[in-house]
């Protein structure tokens, strides 16, 4: 078997944390807590390692004569500038926080705004790809709920039965969402169990 040590570790840790959540054994609780709290800095280190990896990739892209990606220099510059500023000023420094409020926020919010067009256009073109009654139903539902969200129906209480209509309308997606949630929960359970029985070993590189 690949990576026996790692597999044993994953299974052991997983079972302890799992049992700690359900078994009312007092000794298990603190162990579970400790294991959970240990995971956090380790995950953070993994994040740092991955970021270093990202930088490495773009550094190589920059120096790759065959498919040189000159934009990568901007990425590297952006990173090192931010990182240096963070080291010098500290993360809670108001000036450093401008990185979030005046660089990330504008860009991300704008990307989200761009998504308006992307999604609108995608739903228009959907029928170019596939025409099925589910697509038609999907579009109809989209349109209806856009109208609901726009608040046209809720303007004043003048329109009769609107309240009941809205209540019914709001129930429908809940039903489907619940079904999907339950299904995803079932899938998550089996997926998690596959890890706990050592069938899935993504860590066995």
């Amino acid at each position, binding site marked *: 078997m690949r990576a026996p040590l790692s597999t044993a570790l994953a299974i052991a840790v997983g079972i302890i944390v799992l049992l700690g959540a359900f078994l009312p054994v007092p000794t298990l609780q603190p162990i579970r807590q400790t294991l959970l709290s240990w995971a956090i800095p380790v995950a*953070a280190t993994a994040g740092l390692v991955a970021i270093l990896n990202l930088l490495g990739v773009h550094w190589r892209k920059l120096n790759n004569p065959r498919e040189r990606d000159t934009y990568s220099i901007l990425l590297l510059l952006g990173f090192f500038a931010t990182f240096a500023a963070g080291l010098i000023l500290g993360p809670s420094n108001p000036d450093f926080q401008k990185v979030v409020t005046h660089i990330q*926020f504008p860009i991300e919010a704008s990307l989200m705004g761009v998504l308006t067009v992307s999604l609108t256009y995608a739903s228009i073109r959907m029928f*170019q790809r596939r025409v099925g009654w589910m697509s038609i139903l999907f579009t109809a539902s989209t349109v209806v709920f856009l109208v609901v969200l726009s608040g046209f129906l809720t303007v004043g209480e003048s329109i009769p039965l609107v309240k009941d209509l809205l209540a019914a309308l709001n129930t429908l997606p809940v039903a489907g969402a619940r079904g999907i949630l339950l299904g995803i929960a079932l899938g998550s359970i089996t997926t998690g169990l596959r890890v706990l029985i050592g069938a899935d070993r993504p860590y066995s590189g």
Partner: protein
Amino acid sequence: MSEIICPYCGTSNSPDADQCRSCHKHLFVEPSASPTPHTSADDDWLNSLRGDTHPLPDDEPAQDESPAGSEDEIPDWLARIRQRTQEDTLEQPAGEAAEPGEELPDWLKEIHITDQSQTGEDQPADQTLDDIPLPDWLAASASPSQPVEDAIPDTLQVAAEAQAEPALEEGDLPDWLSALPQPAVEEQPGEESALTGEEPPDWLKTFGSYADESTPLEETPAAPAGDEWLKSFESFGEAAQSEEEGLPLLLPLENDQAQSVEMPAAEELPSDAAQMPVPSSEDWLASLSAGEQTPAPEAEVEPSAVSGEDWLRSFAAYTEEALPQADTPVPSGEDWFKSFEPLPVEQELPASAAEEELPPFEELSVSAEMQAEAPPFDLPYSQEFPPLEEMESSAVFRVQADESAAPEEEADTAPFISDDLPDWFADDQLLDTLHEGEKPAAEGETSLEPAELPGWLQAMRPLEAVAPGRAGNDADQRVETSGPLTGYQGVLPGEALVTQYSKPGIYSGRLHVLEKQRAYASLLENLVAEEKIRQPAPAERSAAPRLLARILVSALIVVVVLAFLVGGFTAVGLPGLYAPESVSFFNRIQALSTSADTTAPLLLAVDFEPALAGEIRTAAAPVLEDLLSNNIPLVILSTNPTGAVLAEDLLSTISGYNPDTVLNIGYLPGGSSALAALASQPRLAAPTDRDGGFAWDRPFLQGITHLSDFSAVLLLTDNTENSRAWVEQVAPVLGETPLLVIASNQAAPMIQPYIQSGQVTGMLAGLPGFAAYQQLSGSPSPQAGYWDAYQAGLMLIVVLILLGSLFFIGRQFSKPKSEKRN
């Protein structure tokens, strides 16, 4: 023959190609390939041979040979040949040539020994300890009168020895493949030396018989031809019913060179024909249609070498009948020539042969006959279905094996039919030839009565004493159940087996092109064609129109939004109806802000990305204002790195913000495991504030040990997963503490189920929720323009989606079905 499969690398080549385009080896040696070397090499080689040759010693010399022998010594003529062949075969990769030398299957070594001794008879007797098998072999050839029956027991014994070998060989398949050219090497010199070496006419006759048995090797096409042959058979109609009728048809095709090439081939014909005439006829048909030619000089070689009157007589007598087969020896000539290529490497061989255990010298020397049978007999067994080229070479020995060891075949074949047959075997020509080999035989036996033997064939009778007849009888007894070898035997006598093994490259190429490969090729073509047909589907939608349409949509949305945002247009107005969750949210907040006990802090879980900060900040501002105005302590905690900053930025914009009543724990890494930890032990999970100081010593946190001690948990979230994580991990431990959510519109529908299930107490969703809260709290109307632009924008999107959808649906239905499918 649309293509020729390279026997070395399996690449398909155009029919007119003489070299494989991938491995650059000769598909078959044509005069065009390298004419001069052929002629010169042949002649010189022959001269040298003649020069070197002395009357071949009978059994005696063979037995007298002394053990002390230097394997490295090479006959000078052989050396000369090497030089030439090296020059001739430059394209032969050195590495490839070297390979065989390194590790050769035993049988190969034996053959080589044979070759050594055969070709080097002039050398001092003391030279060849390892050559023992050969002199015996020659002796055997020298005493044809020796009844085969005598040989059988010995052959039995040797066969028994041979049993071990397949297992031993199975490992070295690659070596076999690399050693392919070798066998050819061994065979021809063997013959030559025999030819040149022995004068006595009786011997010559028997040699003739050997020649016969060896020449059929070149006729492999016959058996493998299976189906093809059947076709040709039917196509010929009556012509194919008997040789006589068949041959005239074939006559026009023969070429003089081929005709003159090898009478042995002609002589052998009867015995061959007796067993399976039609295949053999078909074989040369096939080879003829390939339009292959033999270098004339090479063709002359053997007849001249074999200087026997009856030879010539038979030649004179049977030229006509021989024609059909006449061309088949040609390849043998080629093989023979080709076979010299690897020689240079083989000087080690005797050495390696010496290392391996040979039968004790006495045993060998005692019975020349046995040994005569032995090496040949070994070969077929010691190799587990070697590649065709290989078999071709070993076939000369195989013949005898089949003759004498016929009874053992059943038992002996068993080991060969192992599951771990080499890959090349599994799907390669050989397997096919094995199976196909049966058909012609079956056909042949039924269609041709022994009585129908043509006159010239009768003349060959004596030969039958040595060979095929008996094998044929054995064949009758055998059942075609125990695997490939039986496939041969049940169908054909020795010759049949023998004929499996020659001219693989050209032949297999044709056979497969005609049958399977063409089918596969066409299949593949269809597949590829299908792909090709479908390719255009995406291709036909070029990006340009899509870009234009997208830009158009963008322009429309931007214009409308700006018009309502900046232009001051007003839409319908604010909602008068509120979602129940918004109402319960409002009620909870009111309850909190008006409650007497304001010491219990509120946990503000900030979990939104900057992307949706705009929406959430807008919705959360009035709520936070209400909370702060009542001095409710806030503990800010974020499950994403930017949340804390955004929250602080948001709070700083709100009037009544007092940093003393706000603790910003900051980023809580670890996702839902962190939330799980937080749910059970907040102090352990989030010990410090975002400046690194200890968080829980604040006065308003004194009484807080669990999340349920908070007055409420207010979650600002923009995505369904984090809200799920919060609800799943945190809600269970909250008890009476309400979980309130301010969510982006995109997350709201997914939080609905949790509201229904009571895990979430109340929610404000996006701008509508914000508007509702504003209305409920009776505070001033939302930011001017936002709500109008929002409503207008949504309406525009609705219209666009409806129009676009209708357009494309209409186009889909107007399309013909075929297009739809693509």
